[in-house]
Structures are given as C-alpha cells and as structure tokens.
C-alpha cells in the first residue's frame, strides 16, 4: 500500500471524528486509537524515506491542496510524527483525570494532521491552511490547561495570528509575481523575485520567528507552555514551534540554494546563504532564553524558556549559512524536539503523581520514579550539549562552524548558552528528583506503563542519535548535497569529519561509558551516605512559631538560584513592555467605545451636526 501525505491527512480527518466518539465512550480506547494512528504516521513517513511522493486533496475550483514528501522535508516529517506518536502513547494513561479528554484527542489528531500538512505542503496555500488549522486547534488545546491557561491561550492566539497574517500577505505577494503558490515554482523563480524578495524575507522570517519563539517575539512561550495541558506542552514545544524553524529554513536555505543549484552553481557557499542579523537575533535569543530560564520557579515555564534559547540555536545555525552550521541548526531541530518532549513528558509524569509543577514543593522523587528521572536526566544532558548525547552533536557542529569562520562573539554566546542551560536544567534535577522527599509524597508510585514506555522511547532515541549520529545527520546531509551546500562528511554510523577535525561519537560514548562505570564503582565502594529526614536538619526539627516559619521554607530547593537571580534581577522583562502596549491599546479602545457608543442621544445630535457641517464644507 502506497502512503501519501494526502491519504494520511484524509485518514487523519476521518479518524479525528471516530476518535472523538471513541473517547467519549472510553478515554483509554480513544487514546489507544490516537496512538495507533500516529504510529501509522511514523511508519508511513519512514517508508517514504527514499521516495518522492506527490499527492493532493482536491478542492473544487481553482485550488488544490498539494503535498509532497521528498528529501527536503522528510527530516521534519519524521521527527514530527515521532513526537506525535510519543505524546499520544503517553496520553493513554495520562488523560485519566482529564476533564475534556474527547475534545483533547479530537484536537490532537487535528494538530497531527496539521503537522503533516505544514511540513508536507508543496505549496504555500496548503502550508498556510494547515498552519491556521494548527492555530485554532492548539488554541483550544491550550485553553484546557490550568487556571491561567485561558489568557495564555488568547495571547498565543494573538501572536499566532500576527504570524499568520504576515504569511498570508507574503503568500499573495509571491502569487502575484509568479502566478502560483507552489514551492517548486517559487524556488525556480527565486532569482526573478528580486524586487519583492526583501519584503518576502521579512514577512516570512518574522512569521517564523514568532512561531519559533525567538527573541524578541518569544513572549508567548512562557505562559503558553507553562499553562497548557502537560501532554500538549510536549507537542507544542517539540513540534509546533518547529513550524517556525521550518519557514525560516525554507526562506533562508531552501529557496535560494535550490534556485542557485538549478542555475548550475556547483557550490552554494555561506556568502550566499548567511544572514548575519538573523544569526545575531538567534544569539540574543540564546542569551535571553538562558538567563530567563534561570529565574523561573515553575518546572514547565523553565522548559519554555529553554525552548527560547534552543530556538535561538536553530536560527543561529540556519542563518550562519555554512554547511556545518546549517547541518547543526537543522539537526538541532531533531535534538530539541526529542529533548523538549522528554523534559515536558517527565514534567507531565511528575505532575501526574504530585499534582504540581512548582519546584519548591517537590524533592527526592528519584527513588519513587526512576524512569521519569532517567528520562529527565538524559534530556537535560542532551540539552546542555554534553557528550555522548544527541545535543552534543548538533551543538558541536554549530561551534565548529562558528570557530571555522572566526566569529568568536557568537562562539562565546553559544558556549554561554550551553553552560547556562546546565545551570537551569540542573535546578529541576536537584529540586524535583534529588534531595529529600517531602512526606506528602511518601506514597507516590512510578507512572503507568504507557507513560514509561513513551519516555523510554524518547530517551533511547536521544542516546542513539548521540552515539550513532548518522541516523540523524544523514537525511540532513542529503538535503545539503542536493542543494550543493558543501557539507561535512560522515563515515560509518558515528564518524563525523568537519573542516576542522574529526569526531567519532561511538568512541566518545565508550569513553564516557567507562568513566561512568568507574565512578559508579567508586560510589558504591566509597560513599557512606546518611539518609536524613527532611525536617531533621533545620532548627533541630523544631518549627519556630514566633517567627512564623514553616517546614516548606526550609526546603533546600526554595530560592535555589537566589544569589544568581540577584545579579540579573535588574534586567527588564520584555513581557512587561508587551503588557504595557496592550494596556494602552485597550484603553484607547475604551475611549472610542465611551465617546461613540456609550453616549446617549444628545451626543448623537452633535455627531450628526458635525457630519452635516463636514458635508457643507465639502460642497461649498
């Protein structure tokens, strides 16, 4: 049976209704069906690996929705469907206490089809339609979250609509010029678009940055990711913000390089593809994301800011323009999709058993939830770019490119982001999983099997892509070769050759493995740890009523990075400026309402008199 994107989307839209009805009947059954559907997606995309599959959905009239799966979008489709599958698997048990599970699954399937539709689009109209589908479906999904989720969803909607409207304008600009929405036609005519190329670039890249959560338009991420339903956060951060990276990739790399390749240019170098301003925006995003993440006390908001920082890496890599940088940027999409999924899923698992994402209130969960802990640990090691995990590979490629071009400022920022990420991702590790277990969690257990399995898949993939990076890099290198971008060479499963040096990840992994075993042996031989009850060590176990202390404030995770925060707390928050702007607009609208509509008949008389006077003035 031949799968096409079109047929997958068809089946998705039919199944969405079936799954809705099934979930009304039984939550578990509905989620299992969703998982099977997304599993089918993963399988279908996997077997489309080496083919070019063109398909369409016929809309009566002039426009058809056209889809394509080929080497240029295959990596995006693959990682997208994997994250969808994993989070659906997680939801089999994860939706147990969820109030609107039926709508959740229904909308999840719509989001799933929109992932296929956006990454698999062969024309801008299709891309735009599925982009908007994703917007309204995820708006409702986010609305299902915590108490503040409603206003967060509206903010998300507002920002998404800005990016959608930038896109729709750009879309018709191209259409007017080349008479088609098709990506191929646009790529082939890219050179003739010189008079509108600047505008197109600004419109689409800005739209991509908004969606991708890059500074200075990242402000929606904190509240949206922080308040969305836990399972959906992983899809939102893992895949949906990658829509933005995809658009940036199309306009920064794909169109220009494809055009030059068809014109017979044999090597498309960085001088054609690099966009310094965009690269610096990516770098600022790394800084801001990292510094803001350190200040968060909420598990999920922390991960949200880490997404800002990692979106920065992706943009920096893509916009820097050399083969190695683009490879690093695009593979970082894979890395971050997996690690974001891993972190948000472990946050969801913690929430599932504790009912909170506030890090102050947790601790010591490692003994209760080893799988969740491992998932989180692997994800953060990958996020921090520490070998031998996938995150190291992509960041290493970006460092290589930056150093090879001698751009030390960007290199410094990229390193800073890595070290910084270690600071902030360590905080949940220490405060949620390590340390003392509060008594209220004495009876918690590890999460059910489906959640464990889905977290394990993410963990294993992160390790596999780290130790054998060719699985992740080969598909992207294929893109670069097809676009005549000079790229790095890869041998076997793990040997990477760049301009500067050579790296065998398998060897690195073995060395790390030996080190790990050695330290473990030492730990068990030498360590003589004492188990201390949480309330034993402070104030000798006494609660001092006179100064109204409570046990909680003595928890060591309280104000974990207070000293660090003190250094950076003077820094203004961009969110605050957005809020002030919104308040002013809102007040202006109030004034309009007050003057025009709330006033009574006497005011109308004034209006009408003024109208007549104006008319008279025009006439005479």
């Amino acid at each position, binding site marked *: 049976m031949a799968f096409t994107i079109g047929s997958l989307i068809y089946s998705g839209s039919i199944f969405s209704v079936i799954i809705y009805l099934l979930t009304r009947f039984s939550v578990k059954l509905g989620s299992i069906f969703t998982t099977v559907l997304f599993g089918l997606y993963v399988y279908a995309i996997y077997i489309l690996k080496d083919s070019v599959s063109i398909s369409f959905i016929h*809309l*009566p*009239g*002039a426009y058809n929705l056209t889809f394509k799966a080929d080497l240029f979008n295959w990596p995006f489709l693959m990682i997208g469907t994997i994250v969808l599958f994993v989070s659906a698997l997680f939801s089999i048990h994860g939706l147990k206490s969820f109030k*609107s599970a039926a709508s959740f699954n229904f909308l999840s399937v719509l989001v799933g089809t929109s992932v296929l539709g956006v990454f698999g689009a062969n024309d801008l109209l299709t891309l*735009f*339609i*599925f982009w*908007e*589908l994703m*917007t*309204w479906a995820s*708006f*409702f999904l986010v*609305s*299902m979250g915590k108490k503040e*989720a*409603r206003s967060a*969803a*509206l903010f998300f*909607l*507002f920002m998404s*609509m*800005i990016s959608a*409207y930038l896109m*729709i*304008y750009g879309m*018709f*600009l191209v*259409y*007017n010029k080349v008479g088609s929405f098709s990506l191929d036609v646009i790529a082939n005519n890219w050179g003739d678009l010189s008079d509108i190329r600047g505008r197109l670039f600004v419109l689409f890249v800005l739209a991509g940055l908004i969606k991708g959560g890059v500074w200075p338009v990242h402000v929606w991420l904190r509240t949206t990711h922080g308040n969305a339903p836990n399972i959906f956060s992983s899809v939102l951060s893992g895949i949906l913000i990658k829509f933005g990276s995809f658009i940036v990739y199309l306009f920064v790399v794909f169109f220009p390089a494809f055009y030059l390749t068809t014109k017979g240019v044999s090597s498309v170098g960085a001088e054609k593809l690099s966009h310094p301003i965009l690269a610096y925006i990516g770098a600022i995003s790394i800084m801001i994301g990292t510094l803001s993440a350190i200040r968060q006390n909420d598990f999920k908001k922390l991960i949200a800011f880490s997404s800002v920082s990692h979106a920065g890496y992706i943009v920096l890599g893509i916009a820097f323009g050399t083969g190695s940088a683009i490879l690093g940027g695009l593979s970082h999409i894979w890395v971050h999709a997996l690690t974001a999924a891993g972190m948000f899923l472990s946050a969801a698992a913690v929430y599932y058993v504790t009912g909170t994402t506030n890090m102050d209130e947790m601790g010591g969960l490692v003994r209760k939830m080893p799988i969740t802990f491992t998932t989180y640990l692997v994800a953060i090691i990958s996020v921090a770019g520490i070998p031998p995990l996938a995150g190291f590979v992509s960041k290493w490629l970006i460092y290589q490119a930056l150093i090879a071009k001698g751009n030390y400022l960007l290199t410094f920022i990229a390193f800073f982001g890595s070290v910084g990420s270690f600071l902030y991702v360590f905080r949940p590790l220490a405060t949620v999983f390590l340390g003392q277990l509060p008594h209220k969690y004495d009876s918690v257990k590890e999460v059910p099997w489906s959640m464990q399995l889905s977290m394990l898949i993410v963990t294993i993939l992160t390790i596999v892509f780290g130790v054998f990076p060719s699985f992740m890099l080969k598909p992207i290198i294929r893109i670069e070769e097809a676009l005549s971008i000079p790229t790095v060479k890869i041998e076997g499963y793990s040997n990477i050759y760049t301009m500067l040096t050579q790296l065998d990840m398998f060897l690195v992994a073995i060395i790390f493995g030996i080190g790990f075993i050695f330290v473990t042996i030492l730990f068990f031989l030498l360590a003589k740890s004492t188990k201390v009850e949480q309330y034993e060590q402070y104030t000798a176990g006494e609660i001092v009523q006179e100064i109204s202390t409570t046990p909680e404030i003595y928890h060591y995770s309280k104000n974990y990075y207070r000293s660090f925060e003190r250094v950076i707390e003077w820094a203004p928050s961009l969110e605050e400026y957005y809020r002030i702007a919104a308040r002013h607009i*809102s007040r*202006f*609208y*109030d004034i*309009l*309402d007050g003057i*025009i*509509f709330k*006033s*009574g*008949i006497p005011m*109308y008389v004034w*209006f*009408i008199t003024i*109208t007549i006077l104006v*008319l008279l003035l*025009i*006439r005479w």
Partner: protein
Amino acid sequence: MVKNPVLLIALPLIIGFFTAFISPFIKKGYSIIAIFTAAITTILSSLLFSNSGTDLITYPIGGWSTKYGIYLISNIQISGLLVLVNFIAFLALIYYSIKERDLGSELGYSLGFILSIAAVNGLILTGDLFNMFVFIELLSIGGYILATHKGGYYSAFKYVVLSSIGGLFFLIGVISIYNVTGLLSLLYIPKTESFHNLPAIFLIVLSVIWVIGLSGESELFPLNMWVGSVYKNTSTSAVVFFASVLSVGGIYAIIKLLSLIFNNGYAAIYRYIYALGLITLFIGEAVAFKQKDAKKMLGYSSIAQAGLIISLVALSIKSSLNIDLYSSAIFQLINNIIAKALVLFGLGVIGYSGFNKLKGVGKERREVALLLTIGTLSLAGMPGFAGFWSKFYIVKSLVSNGEIVFLVVFLFSALFEVYYLLRLSQIILFEPQEEEVSLEIPSIVEYVILTMLAAVILYIGFYPNVIYNLICKVGLIGG
C-alpha cells in the same frame, strides 16, 4: 407568474394587511402566518434564483417604461442573496414561533417580521430611487418594531432617531439628483447627459449623503450608534433579523447605488466612502473587542463587517468595476450573515449573552456550544470554515491591486476580531462556571436550525468556489 419577483414584496404586504384584517376574529397563530410568509418568499426567491443568469434583468411594474416607471432588477447574485436572506428569516421566525412568541403581542411582532421581509426584499430588488426610499422607511418601521421585542424601548428610540435622520439624508440626495437629471431610475441616471456634466464635488456629496442616509440600516458609521444597545436588548429572533436580514438590505442598497450609478470610473468619490468604511471597520472591531456581552459584541462585529464590505465595494469602483474586489465583498457578506446567524441563534438557545453568565455553559450544552463554535471559527476566518475563503479572497484581491493601507487596516482589525470571537468560544467551552444559570432544554427544532446553518458553513468551507463563482463573481452592471 412566478418569474416576476414583485410577489416577493407584494405577498408579505398583502398577507400582513389581511392578518391585521382578520385579527378581531382570530386570537392566536399569527406566528404561523409569519412562518408561512417567509416559507413562500423563500420558495419564490429560489424559483427566481433557478431562472436567473448573470445578466441584470428588469421587471417593469404596471407596464411603464423602465426609464420613468417603477421596476425591479434581478440577476443571479440578487436572487441568490434573496434566497439566503429569506431562508434565514424563515429560520428566525421558526425560532420566534417556538420560543419567543409570548414575549410581546403576537400579532404586532408577527406583523413587524412580515413587514421587514417585504422591506428587505424590496430594498434588494428595487431599481429606482424613490422606491428605495420607500423601502428604507418601511425597513425602519420594521426595525422599530423588532427593536422593542424584549422591551428595550430606549435603544429602539435611538434606532428611531438615527434611522429617520438617515432617511432624511437619503431623501435630500434623491431630490438633488432628480432636480438635475429628471430621473429616478438607477439604470438610466448614469446614462443621461446632465449626469455626466455634473461637477465632481456634487457627485462626492451625493454619494456620501446616500451612504450616510443608508448608514442607519446598514450599520455603517456615523448613524450606527444604536447597534450595540439594540442587539443587547432585543430578542434572539429579532437580533438575527437585524444582523442577517435587515442589514443586508441596507448594505446591498449601498452596493447598488455605488455600482449602478457611480460605476464608470468616478475616481473622485471612491475615496470618501472607502475612508468611511475603513473607519467603521476599525472602530467596530476595536469596540467589539471591549464588550462584555456576547450579543453586543456581535453587533459591533456586524458594524465592522459592514464597513469592510462597503470599503471593498467602494474600492472596486475606483476605475471601471474591479470584479475581484467586488466579489470578495459579496462573499464576505454572505459568509458573515450565515455565521452570525448561527452564533446568535446559539446564544439564543443557551439563553444568556453576558460573559459572566456564559462561563462554562458549554459543559452542560455541549452540542450547542460546538455548533456555535463553528460559527465563531467561520467569522474568525479559520480554515475548514466558510469565513476562511472570504478572508482569502479579500487579501488576494487587495494584494493584487496593491492596496497595502487597506490590507494593513484589515489585518490589524482582524487580529482583534479573531481574539474576541475565539474568546467567546473559550468562555463558553472552558471557563469554570461562576454564576448559577438555569438552562432550558433545547428542542429538536432548535438543534435542526443550528445544524443546518453549521452545515452550510462547512459546505462553503470545503466547496467555496460553488458559491463564489455562481453568486459573487457577478458584477452589477446596468444593461
């Protein structure tokens, strides 16, 4: 016989007259007569629609020449709109009959509805200025009655004041043009020598005065201040009439005036009406954004849509008729009235419109809330629903004509529109309940009404070009 659209106007008027005539003897069942009237006008307009082509056909009345006498005009666009408007009126009357019959005197309000149908049909069909004025006045009378359906007398009073002033403005315009050309026929005025010799400034004032004259009925700035309070204070069936029936009459009358009289490239005049429309669009969306009452909010949204449509039409006659801009405006009109009717019916079925009361009612009335959400998503222009395609065609025609200022104003206001519309759905579906509300159990008929409208929206959402090519892409060019 059925081919002559005059029955669409005459029949409701005759039925209305006889209803009053028999009222001393029959005490109940007037709403059935109203439903019956709307059903017949829907069937008649469908017959007219099936016999229509793209050419504008004139139907003289009383055997007079169309140059001097009274006549009606119709083509596939006009008859298509009539089918839609009469059908929505039919649905509203069914709703009125099962739920709101006892709100006021059944006789009085049934007559008000019948009268409004006659007036709207007349306004859409008429081909001469004097009858247009008559139907505007008739429409106002229908409007006054409907505005008081739930006892909102002060808001009805606002409507009375504003629309009578509008009528006066319109009449001044009619008299001026009659003085100059000696004609009242929409099709013949632009052909006369004297009209061609008129100074540009006269045409500007004439067109602006007409648009202002009709701004009461069509909910345009500046005579639209009644909208919010009337929408809030009247019954569901009446508010559906205002949003999806009466306003269509007003808007289409302006469209006729602009595209029949000023269609030969009077570049000087388009700018004023275009600006008026854009101001209306912006103010409407801005004010709707601030509302805390769903019906009021939708009222201001109607204002904004009227502004958008009139701006597009004004722009389309800038030089000779630009069919892309024109048809996107008509498409927007159609999608807007269907979706708005759906949302307003949905709110009516729920029974509340204040945001604090609406919170969380979707949990108890899930089906109604979901159907209503189809309406809000369509109004917000989301893909999969009809509204997406009208937004699509509007942006397409604006970009291809290089109207970037318009585009920016449109998209900027649309941002807020999407925000407040989806916020309404969010409040209904996801907010936790705050106040105790007592909900009636909806009858099957109400579900049928909502489902029908939702099905139309989804149908257009997936097959946009059926409606677009058939009805919208037809210019009103006088033959």
